[in-house]
């Protein structure tokens, strides 16, 4: 709703910069590197839709000795930096169907407002009634001089439909305040580097401008000339400021984007790559410490023709477990998403941490997640949470399972709360995903005691360190 023009001004205003310092801000990249000393921590939340095929997704083993199954096989090179969390459930109920709550409550941990958006079942709903964890962490980092960055957070997307509704929004800056992800890499580029390009253009015209001013000054009266001479001085000052900026900006190479990639289904692989490259670059320049990466949307209908799959993703995800062909396709689809995650991890691991130790991946945690546990049941239990990277000092290289109930007893236990063999009341082994959201904040040193609906925050953050 806002133009990029106003957002730049808002940004300047938000920083409380006066007009006098504006020229220096032309070099926005140097505003990065807010803190050269302390360790920079980052969080990326990557989203893919329509659930997974549990049997080809979750490792059978628990602990550090585990094998990656087909869906996660592209992550093999990063196995020792991987943490899979089975048994984490989205327990938020209320208005909206599971796809809506699946994405709307995923990062917010709180109910949707009643509203006018009708899902495939259940009652209609509106937007989430609270902010999302990425924004909570961003606000925490932005509130501190040492961790504040130019943007705080960046919301990337790939092929997000041109409609704002509950199914297409994952991040919220507050109740009823969904954030629109930027799914056009060129738009993201101009948000990130527009000022740099402006600066180059500006530099290129200053000589002409000086010459023009000189010519004009010689043709007016002495009194009027004063005005033009004043402007000449300002232009000279601008030139010097731009020069000083250019020296500071060394090392902030602007990435080259392959031009003309249209936003079309078949371009998804290229679009993903462009967005990932931009994200890695913006981390290297410390434009932001938090990013979301939303590939399509809840109920996403990507047609992965490059995998020889011609049906839409959501359509296939409704197929029963018995439809082996469909399950095989779904496995391939999720494997492709895992490949995107692997590419992101690879790029981060290859990029040295500027002014710090190790690589960007050493200081970044990626959380890959989904609005559903499983597509054909629409369950919000066992939401895929796959964590990669060492940004939050979690103990990585493990497969955890919070679902302690033997599979055969699961249904009964959930329905009745009793173990039908022993007859004893059991505490379901699964954990609410609010607790994982809290762990993410705690990983940044932001020790919140609840997040989203407090009823699901009992026992505090999951201990992952």
């Amino acid at each position, binding site marked *: 709703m806002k133009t990029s023009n106003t957002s730049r001004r808002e940004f300047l205003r938000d920083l409380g910069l006066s007009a006098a310092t504006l020229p220096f801000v032309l070099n926005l990249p140097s505003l990065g590197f807010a803190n050269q000393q302390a360790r920079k921590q980052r969080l990326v939340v990557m989203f893919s839709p329509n659930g997974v095929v549990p049997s080809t997704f979750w490792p059978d083993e628990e602990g550090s000795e585990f094998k990656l199954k087909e869906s996660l096989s592209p992550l093999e090179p990063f196995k020792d930096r991987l943490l899979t969390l089975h048994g984490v459930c989205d327990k938020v109920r209320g208005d909206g169907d599971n796809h809506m709550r699946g994405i709307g409550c995923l990062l917010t941990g709180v109910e949707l407002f009643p509203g*006018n958006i009708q899902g495939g079942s259940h009652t209609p709903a509106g*937007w989430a009634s609270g902010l999302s964890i990425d924004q909570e962490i961003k606000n925490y980092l932005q509130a501190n001089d040492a961790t504040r960055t130019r943007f705080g957070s960046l919301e990337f997307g790939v092929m997000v439909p041109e409609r704002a509704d509950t199914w297409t929004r994952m991040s919220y800056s507050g109740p009823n305040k969904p954030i629109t992800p930027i799914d056009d890499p060129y738009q993201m580029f101009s948000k990130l580097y527009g000022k740099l390009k402006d600066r180059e*253009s500006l530099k290129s015209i200053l000589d002409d*401008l000086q010459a023009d001013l000189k010519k004009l000054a010689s043709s007016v009266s002495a009194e009027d000339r004063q*005005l033009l001479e004043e*402007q000449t001085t*300002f232009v000279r*000052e601008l030139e010097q400021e731009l020069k000083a900026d250019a020296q500071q900006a060394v090392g902030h190479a602007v990435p080259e984007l392959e031009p003309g990639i249209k936003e079309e289904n078949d371009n998804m692989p290229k679009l993903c790559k462009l967005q990932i490259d931009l994200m890695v670059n913006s981390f290297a320049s410390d434009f932001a410490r938090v990013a979301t990466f939303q590939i399509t949307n809840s109920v996403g209908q990507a047609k992965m023709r490059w995998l020889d799959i011609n049906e839409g993703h959501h359509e296939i995800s409704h197929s029963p477990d018995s439809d082996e062909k469909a399950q095989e396709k779904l496995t391939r689809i999720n494997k492709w998403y895992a490949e995107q995650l692997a590419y992101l991890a690879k790029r981060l691991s290859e990029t040295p941490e500027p002014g710090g130790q190790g690589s960007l991946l050493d200081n970044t945690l990626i959380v890959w997640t989904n609005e559903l546990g499983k597509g054909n049941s629409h369950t919000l239990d066992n939401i895929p949470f796959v964590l990669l990277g060492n940004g939050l000092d979690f103990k990585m290289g493990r497969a955890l399972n919070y679902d302690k109930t033997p599979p055969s007893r699961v249904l009964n236990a959930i329905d009745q709360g009793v173990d039908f063999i022993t007859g004893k009341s059991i505490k379901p082994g699964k954990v609410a995903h609010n607790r994982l959201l809290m762990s993410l904040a705690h990983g940044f040193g932001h020790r919140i005691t609840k997040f989203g609906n407090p009823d699901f925050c009992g026992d505090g953050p999951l201990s992952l360190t």
Partner: protein
Amino acid sequence: MFLGVSTVCGADRTGEQIYQQVCASCHGLKGEGTIESYPHPLVGERSVGELTEYISKSMPEDKPGTCVGEDARKVSQFIHDTFYSPTAQARNKPVRVELSRLTVRQYRHAVADLIGSFRGAGRIDDKEGLRGEYFKARGFRGNARAIERVDPVVAFDFKDKSPDDEKMEPHEFSIRWEGAVTAPDTGEYEFVVRTDQAARLWINDLKQPLVDNWVQSGKETEHRESIFLLAGRTYALRLEFSKAKQGVDDKKVKEKPPAPASISLEWKRPHRITEVIPARSLSTSRPSEAYVVTTRFPPDDRSVGWEKATSISKEWDQATTDAAIDVATFVASRFEEFAGTKRDAADRDEKLKTFCRRFVERAFRRPLDDEQRAMFVDRHFAEGVDSETAVRRVVLLTLKSPRFLYRELGARSPTLRVGTSEANKPDSESQATDLFDVASRISFAMYDSLPDQAMLDAAAKGDLKTREQVAQHAQRLLADPRTRSKLREFLLTWLKVEHVPDVSKDSERYPEFNATIANDLRTSLELFLEEIIKSDTSDFRQLLLADGIYLNGRLAKFYGAMKDDAELPADAPFQKIDLEPDQRAGVLSHPYLMAGFAYTGSSSPIHRGIFIARSVLGRSLRPPPEAVAPLAPQLRPDLTTRERVALQTKPESCQSCHAMINPLGFTLEHFDAVGRFRKEENGKPVNATGAYRTRNGDEVKFAGVNDLAKFLADSPETHSAFVEQLFHFLVKQPIRAFGSNTRETLRASFVKDNFNIHRLMVEIMATAALTTHESKPQTPTTAINQ
């Protein structure tokens, strides 16, 4: 002491001698003042008679009453003619047309028109309201359209009913309104969509909604967003509304309980309150998208009463850079559309260059010569530079160039005289007046923006050389909405209310006077001004004499006193009402001004008197010698406001100005702090008699507002002041730089034209646009020896 005085006032002394002996020690040899005694120049507008009276009574300060009679008259005459009077000042101070940059308003309008010139205006019509299409479905499918009509405003509470029982079901329908909204003022507007259903609102940019509430979530029913708009322009508007569940179509749901639905489209204009957008601000036009520069600029210097743009600052320079970058980014994002070409077209580069040349020419308001074309256009399209970068550079260089940023710079550059057209050849005539300068003078004066194509064509053909030719264009431009908007702003400035004063009042004394009444009052005044602006006679005197006033139901109830005891229903819209004729006169007694020139709990004859003296009569008043807090009414409850003011301004040091201010302000004492007519104050009858001594020295007496208004409407002083202020507001250069007789000549033609403000604007243009500007200042004349 007595001896000394008698020597001074000897009968054979000239006025000059008396001045040098008695006055110069404090006032300086040429009336310039002295630092020790009187550090102000002796300048003003009193008549010789007034000066004589003042000097006799109070000068010299240490021995008042020692310079009287013929001596006082002689010394007054000398002072008056040598340096004191406006004519003497004009002689003494050289004035010239100074190099001026675009004012902030001019900058914004010039950029809007520059971009707009590549898009066309769209379709503008005068029909009020919005086109409404009603659909018997949740979406806007053509085959579901059931009603088409024009709705004057959008303020509907459908409850749980259908808009039309015969044509659509109550539980599911949608409406799309389209048209345009006109912004009266420049500034930040808030648009508010109030609804319990799905709704989306677009303003100006029809691709990106300003307000998007297609997801109705939770209990929020007020959806508000801001947008910066320029005054006098019309912006596209579209509003979509849908009473239905969105998302998955729930056709199979059988049960459809009745549910309420409502929608209203409101706005909050700058410094006003939120209200339903009135029909007069809506139209069924289809304007093209306008480009609005939203960069913040430092405000222009208005200390002389008009926007004087003869200085620049670092902040201003930075703002021009920021704005140029924004415009360059915008143009670069759609240059192919502007240039009428496509990515792979064979003649793409040629088309782009042509576009760039036009862009530069329009920005500079004149054709380019070969050298300039190379510098501003061609060289940026060099090898290895992609065309987007080239266009970006051209735009940046153009908008940073003094040729765009300054008015009347063009012709001063020798290279610019060698134009491509005949009229620009450096023959003796075009040396004197560059016709493209003439075109710019007309356009910037009439509507603060670039000359239109008709004027540029006329300049190129040499058809802007005579008064008649200039007048013809000025006449044509009177109907331009930008011109009307400028005139409107001038009238508000003339009335000293251009910045929407705070008129909140003491809520105990005036419990019914609230923000809504204050907002209505402003609207009432604006409607009156707009009526004058639109009328063909645009008679200046009507501003002072008209007995009608625009009231709605609320105002009528509050202000009452309608003629023949007429009444308005409480929800009546604005309409022109005749009040008791002896109680009101034109804008002078308009309750908005009366409330504005008043304290929260009492009237203020001083503020009212100063307004009449300064703004209406054009008298210059110095600031008070010391800041004085007004005497609080409760300290002297036995006194009327008039008596209190008289008491407080009794000292001689006050009287030099208040002798003029008070008797003018007292004539409006029938109007209390909220502008209501009153016959009594504190149980005492109101005394609204007043007086004024003209510049000729004549004493005029008034028995109230009607006498005052009649006097002012007929007074040459009022006419002169109006002429001068309008000239400055339009031309933004001192009127004296256009010849010492210009004001008088214009005044005479104003009288001859029955005080038609439109005609006066045309005359101002005919005078100012063709005046040759000296680039060298005149040599100051030494008045003292004249």
